[in-house]
């Protein structure tokens, strides 16, 4: 791809934020993952135009950037909901019924794990071990930890965010 042939339409607010992140990190070897992580923190997700913009800025082929964003679970290429529910599906949580909790969220929100509700309010994730097995089964909502749950707690948890 020749620079200039591919029109990158990007929100100027985003490009300013990305420029700052790139300037702070690009000098370090192997900083692509850190740059993507900080960019996602800023923008919320990594849509194609953002990846293309980063490709030009860093002089890394878009294919390589796309390869990295789709490889790691941390990165989203779609926008996420206002609140993210991450139910731990580590072994300790699983044997204590985390599967039932995911199923109950799926029922209440009418989405599957990995999806976002139509109103953009909740994203439901079944995540890898949070390392808080003492609280199993455990989940986080926007990073706040809730532990020792049963599927009967799901409704109450959601009501706090209504």
């Amino acid at each position, binding site marked *: 791809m020749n620079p200039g042939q591919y029109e990158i339409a990007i929100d100027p607010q985003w490009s300013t934020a990305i420029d700052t992140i790139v300037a702070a990190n690009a000098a370090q070897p192997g900083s692509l*993952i850190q740059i993507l992580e900080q960019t996602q923190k800023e923008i919320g997700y990594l849509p194609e135009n953002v990846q293309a913009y980063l490709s030009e800025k860093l002089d890394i082929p878009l294919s390589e950037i796309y390869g*990295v964003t789709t490889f790691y679970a941390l990165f989203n290429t779609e926008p996420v909901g206002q609140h993210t529910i991450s139910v731990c*599906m*580590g*072994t300790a949580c699983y044997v204590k019924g985390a599967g039932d909790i995911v199923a109950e969220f799926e029922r209440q929100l009418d989405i599957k794990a990995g999806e976002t509700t139509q109103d953009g309010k909740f994203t439901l994730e079944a995540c890898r071990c949070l390392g808080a097995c003492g609280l199993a089964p455990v989940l986080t909502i926007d990073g706040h*930890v809730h532990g020792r749950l049963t599927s009967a707690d799901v409704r109450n948890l959601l009501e706090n965010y209504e």
Partner: protein
Amino acid sequence: MRVNTLEDLHHIKSQSQESGGHSPRDNHHKLTVNVHQGTCGIANGAKEVYAAMVESAQHYLNKDKQPENHSRDKDHQNENGHMGESEYIGEIKNSSHNSLNGIHITQTGCPGMCYNEPLVSITGPADQPYIYGQVTPENARAIIASHIENQTPIYEWLVNTAPIDKTLTAMQDMPFFKNQKRIALANCGVVNPEKIEDYIAADGYFALARTLSEMQPLDVINEIKTSGLRGRGGGGFPTGAKWEFAHNVSSDQKYVVCNADEGDPGAFMDRSILEGDPHRLIEAMAIAGYAIGANQGYVYVRAEYPIALERLKWAIGQAQDKGLLGDHILGSAFSFTLDIRLGAGAFVCGEETALLSSIEGKRGEPRPRPPFPAVSGLWGYPTIINNVETYANVPAIILNGAAWFSAIGTEKSKGTKVFALAGKINNIGLIEIPMGTTLRTIIEDIGGGIPHGKKYKAAQTGGPSGGCIPTDMLDIEIDYDNLQAIGSMMGSGGLIVMDEDTCMVDIARFFLEFTQDESCGKCTPCRIGTKRMLETLDKITEGKGDAGDIDKLEALAHSIQNASICGLGQTAPNPVLSTLMYFRNEYEAHIHEKKCPAHACQEMLSYTILDDKCTSCSLCARVCPTDAISGKTKEPYKIDQDKCIKCGACMAKCKVGAIEHS
């Protein structure tokens, strides 16, 4: 103050001990209130407990006159997970406390008793700690009022008392700690992880000082080799030999890497060490750098551990300020820099060559070995990679000697192993046991047995690469070789206990789902083989298994083991093979009788209401998410099997045990 010499280190140690701003263990001057703040503690409200403790203590101290109390470390930024204002020190003016200089409220990492979080321990001069469990902010206020103000401990809330005669049990005599030996976890729950002085007061950085002043790189390597230390990340490769390979390669640039990408679901020992004692890792990595001739290190930490990450960053900053990282450490010719790289959520990055790719900013795909990283690693330079727990043993080996370390453990597995004890067990927690301890000791004595009077069925070690250990092998002495011999493996230390309600076919399916999802896709046996195995297991747990499925699973398992590029694929079939070895009857019941003996596989369950027990209270009908239950007053309720989604909510809700499943 920069630390330039061994004397400087001694000076900080004695100063720290005199000021009392040191671990409560040897604190003879003050009444120390220690609020334990690991991830579990914080999630259970330890931060609020800490705030309540400080507030009540201030209130108490201010009662008579204005005391000269002060808070330390106010300049700490209270960022994500950061302890912020990490201690409170106040002078006690009350005459009843004449023997004391003050009250010192501090924060440490987790002592391992996850089941009693949030924990607060109160230690007076020459006292054993009084350990309060499951403390709430209200309890915290009551504890300050009773224990500190009126000098009357609240015995009902203590976790280390004999219930009847109110005598205090020393921490090391508690059933949970009695069979443990803490080397890697020695400081966890003891020192304030955000105060380098606390670590130094507990002999921290003295091993690095000894290394730089008295030992040649080969002496360090020999000490580690003689100690018998093996990799604690799972593989069990001799650490000293790994360091020697890297030492022997001549290169201008070498790297030391720490694998803190604790991906094994159900393991949290690395998180606990990073949160509770980050300086130990920094010290060990500097020693490793000196031994192999590297001046740059990387810690690869998973992004799911925000508190661990913050504390490690903070600790690296402190070590730099003190000159214990950076140029000319302790006035020597040795320089060493440490940086953090963030894992982005890929289990395969626990494999060393994949981890290196990830540090380079690429997809975390493994590559065939040789060449081994010790020869050609990060950006092609010689690199050693060890896990957090492996490093955590190094300072103690240097300080106490290889002979001390190798006296602990079994013939081929020296030292201790940390396990994250979780699942269906009473005392969930982080434990460290000498190698050779039996599984029975772990489950029955340390773990306090299985909750709700259920029966032990199996313990799973080694995570998605490991296997299940059945009841008749409870007396096995845990070490690398014994676990391998019975079809499991040490792994990084997840130890998940399962009871009679756990279906072993479902557990095997759970692990296969995990490895299939986490397979990087580079090699066919792992990418497609695990997918086919998972499909077969899905079929069996849904009650659609065929007679030849077990043979198919076994044949596939052996092909995947033999033909995959990296450890992930080579070990992915282990959970299936080990459950087939010990719980074959459960597979057969699923396939031939279409029954799940543990009543866990929902597709094969049917729920019914027992007419003679039903009291027509309607609780079950109200809780049913699909309105499958109906009934009238004074008549037994019924379940519409077509509408029932087998969620089990009715059975959990029924107070008279009128609902059963089969």
